C-alpha cells in the first residue's frame, strides 16, 4: 500500500465530528465518523480516483488534505512531511503546491471580484512574483484554459458554468502546484461540456506533471481520468487498486454493486445487476463488524461481528472483505474471489 513514489500518503486517518446534546449543560453524545481509518497513497504524476456515494466521507478527506479540517487521528504526509505539522514558510509553500477545484462553479468564484483578481488571489502573497509577472501569468493561464485575454477584466456572472470551471482551474494552476484536489469537477456541468473539461484536465496533467486526487460518484468519469481507484463506504476504503483491475474485476460486493448500478453505455450491453437494499446508514451509527454487512448480498454470519481489514488480494489490488484471504481468523473460501467477478446478484456464500 506504500509505493515508493507516493506524493501524498494517508495513514489510518480518522475524522470524527463530536455531537453535542442538551441545553444549558451540553454533553458529547456521539460522533459523526466521517472518515474512519483511511490509508491511501497517491502516486506522483498519477490520478487517484476516490469513489463513493454521498456521505461516505470523500469530501471530508479532501478537507483534511487541504488543511481545512484537522484529523482526529492518523497522519497525512506530503512529500514525506506531516501536513498538519507544517509551519511558517513550509506551510506557505504547501498552500501553493496543493490546490483545489470545487464542484459548483457558481459558488467557487467570488461574484464581486474580477477574473484577474480571482486568478491572482493565490499569487498575491507570493514574493516571487512582481506585479508585472503576475499580470503576465494571468494572461498565460487564460490562454492555457482557453479563454480570451479580454476576459480578465470581467466578472464571473458574465461566464457560463463551463467557462467558470475553467477559470477555477486557472486559479488552481496559478501558483504552479504539483497536486490538485478535484472535488466532483464536472458533475454540475451539462453533458456536452463535461468532455471538454475532462480532456482539458487530462492535457493539463500531462503538460504540468500534475498529481490529481479526483473525488466523484460518477464511475465512468473516474474510469476515464483515474489511474488508481479507491472505493469508499461509510468512512472507510473498501477496495482499491489500479483502475483496469478494479473496473475489470471488482472484488468487494459494494464495488460490484456500484459498477452494476452505473448506467450502461448501450441498452443491450451485457449486464448483471446487483440491486442493494436500503440506503447508506448514518455515519453516526456505523454497523458493527463489516460496515457494509446489512446491505451486502453475500453476507456471512461473522460479517456482523468482525471488521475485515484491507488486504492485498492480488498484487496492487486491495480489498476489505471476509470473502478474501484471512486476516481475522474467519473462514474464507478464497476461490469465491473469481466467482464474484462473474457471478450475478445472488451470493453463493449466503
Amino acid at each position, binding site marked *: 500500500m506504500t509505493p515508493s513514489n507516493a506524493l501524498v500518503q494517508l495513514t489510518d486517518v480518522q475524522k470524527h465530528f463530536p455531537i453535542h446534546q442538551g441545553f444549558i449543560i451540553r454533553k458529547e453524545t456521539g460522533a459523526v465518523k466521517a472518515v474512519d481509518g483511511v490509508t491511501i497513497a497517491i502516486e506522483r504524476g498519477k490520478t487517484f480516483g476516490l469513489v463513493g456515494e454521498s456521505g461516505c466521507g470523500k469530501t471530508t478527506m479532501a478537507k483534511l488534505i487541504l488543511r481545512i479540517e484537522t484529523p482526529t487521528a492518523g497522519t497525512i504526509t506530503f512529500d514525506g512531511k506531516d501536513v498538519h505539522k507544517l509551519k511558517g514558510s513550509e506551510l506557505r509553500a504547501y498552500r501553493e503546491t496543493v490546490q483545489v477545484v470545487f464542484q459548483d462553479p457558481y459558488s*467557487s468564484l467570488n461574484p464581486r471580484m474580477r477574473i484577474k483578481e480571482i486568478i491572482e*488571489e493565490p499569487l498575491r502573497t507570493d514574493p516571487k512574483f512582481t506585479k508585472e509577472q503576475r499580470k503576465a501569468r494571468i494572461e498565460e493561464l487564460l490562454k492555457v484554459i482557453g479563454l480570451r485575454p479580454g476576459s480578465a477584466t470581467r466578472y464571473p456572472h458574465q461566464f457560463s458554468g463551463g467557462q467558470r470551471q475553467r477559470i477555477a482551474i486557472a486559479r488552481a494552476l496559478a501558483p504552479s502546484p504539483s497536486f490538485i484536489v478535484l472535488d466532483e469537477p464536472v458533475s454540475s456541468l451539462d453533458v456536452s461540456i463535461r468532455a471538454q473539461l475532462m480532456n482539458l484536465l487530462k492535457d493539463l496533467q500531462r503538460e504540468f506533471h500534475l498529481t490529481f486526487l479526483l473525488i466523484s460518484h460518477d464511475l465512468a468519469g473516474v474510469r476515464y481520468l483515474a489511474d488508481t481507484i479507491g472505493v469508499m463506504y461509510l468512512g472507510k476504503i473498501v477496495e482499491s487498486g489500479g483502475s483496469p483491475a478494479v473496473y475489470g474485476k471488482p472484488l468487494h460486493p459494494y464495488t460490484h454493486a456500484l459498477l452494476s448500478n452505473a448506467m450502461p453505455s448501450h441498452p443491450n450491453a451485457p449486464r448483471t445487476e446487483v440491486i442493494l437494499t436500503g440506503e447508506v446508514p448514518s455515519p453516526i451509527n456505523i454497523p458493527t463488524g463489516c460496515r457494509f454487512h446489512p446491505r451486502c448480498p453475500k453476507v456471512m454470519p461473522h460479517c456482523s461481528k468482525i471488521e475485515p481489514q484491507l488486504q492485498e488480494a492480488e498484487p496492487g489490488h486491495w480489498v476489505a472483505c471476509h470473502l478474501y484471504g484471512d486476516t481475522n481468523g474467519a473462514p474464507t473460501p478464497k476461490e469465491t474471489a473469481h466467482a464474484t467477478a462473474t457471478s450475478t446478484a445472488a451470493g453463493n456464500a449466503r
Partner: protein
Amino acid sequence: MAIAEQPAAGRVARPRFSAGGVFRTVRHYGIIPGIPLFVLVTLIFVGAFAPLISPHEPNKQSLLDSNVAPAWTAEGTSNNLLGTDRFGRDQLTRIFYGARISLIVSFVTIAIGGAIGTLVGLTAGYFGGWLDSLLMRIVDVFLAFPGLLLAIVLATVFEPSFTIVILVASLLIWPRFARLVRGDTLGIKPNDFVTYARITGTPTPRILMKHIFPNVIPTLLVLCTWEVGAIILLESSLSFLGAGIPPPNPSWGTMVLDGRGQLEEGWWISLFPGLAIMTTVLSLNLLGDWMRDYLDPKLRHA
C-alpha cells in the same frame, strides 16, 4: 417601521449595483427608482443649503403674523408660501431646516448603529458557535424591546436632546443590521470561494473584508435605505411625544405637534410637515424596495 425581510441565503451571484446620478438612473431604469431618487436628492439639497434658500429665520417669532394661511388661499400672503404657525414662524423655512435635522439624525445613526450592527453580524455569522449564540441572544433582547418606550425612559431620565435621539435610534437599528448581515454572512460563508480563501491561508480579516463584506453590500444598501426612513419616522414620533428633538428646533414631528391643538384655526400647520415626513419616508421605502428587487437575482431572472 420598516421590517427588513431576510433575503434568501445561498448563491450570491448578484449584479453590481452602480450608484449613478438621478438622470442616469431614470434613463437606465425608468421612473420607479427615478422619482424617489429625485425627491431624496432634493431633500439633501434643501437640508444642506437650508440657510441659503430659506426665505426667513426658522425660529424668529412674529406674533403679528401668527397663523397666516398658505399663499394660494384667500387669506394667504406671498411672504409665507406655506403659511405660519401660531408664533408666526414661517412654515416653509422650518420645513427646510427640519430636513436638515432629519438628515443629521439619520446619517449619524446609520453611521453608528449600522456600523456596529454590520460588525456584529459579520462576526457572529462568520465565526459561529457560542459567539454567534451569545451575540444573537443579545440581538434578540434588543429587538424585543419596544424602542419607542426605551426612548421615553431615556427622555424622562435625561433632558430630551439630539444625543438621546441618536442614541435611541442607534440602539434600535443595530440589531436589525446585525441580524440581516449575519443572515447574509451565513449564506456566503459556505460558498467555495470562501473555502478557497481559507485553503490558501488568507488571513481572516481579509476574508471578511474582501470576500464576505462586498457580497453583503447590496443587502446593506437596501437596509440602509429602509432604515433611514424608519429613523426619520422614529425621530418625528419622539419629537411629537415631546421626547425627541427639543423645541424650538424645527423637527417635523414637533411641527406636527404644534399644529395638533390648532386644527380649527390652521389646518396647514400640521399638514405640511407631515406631508414632508411621508414623502421622504415613502421615497426611501420605494427606492429600497426597488433596489431589493433589482439586486435580487431570483426576481431578476424570473
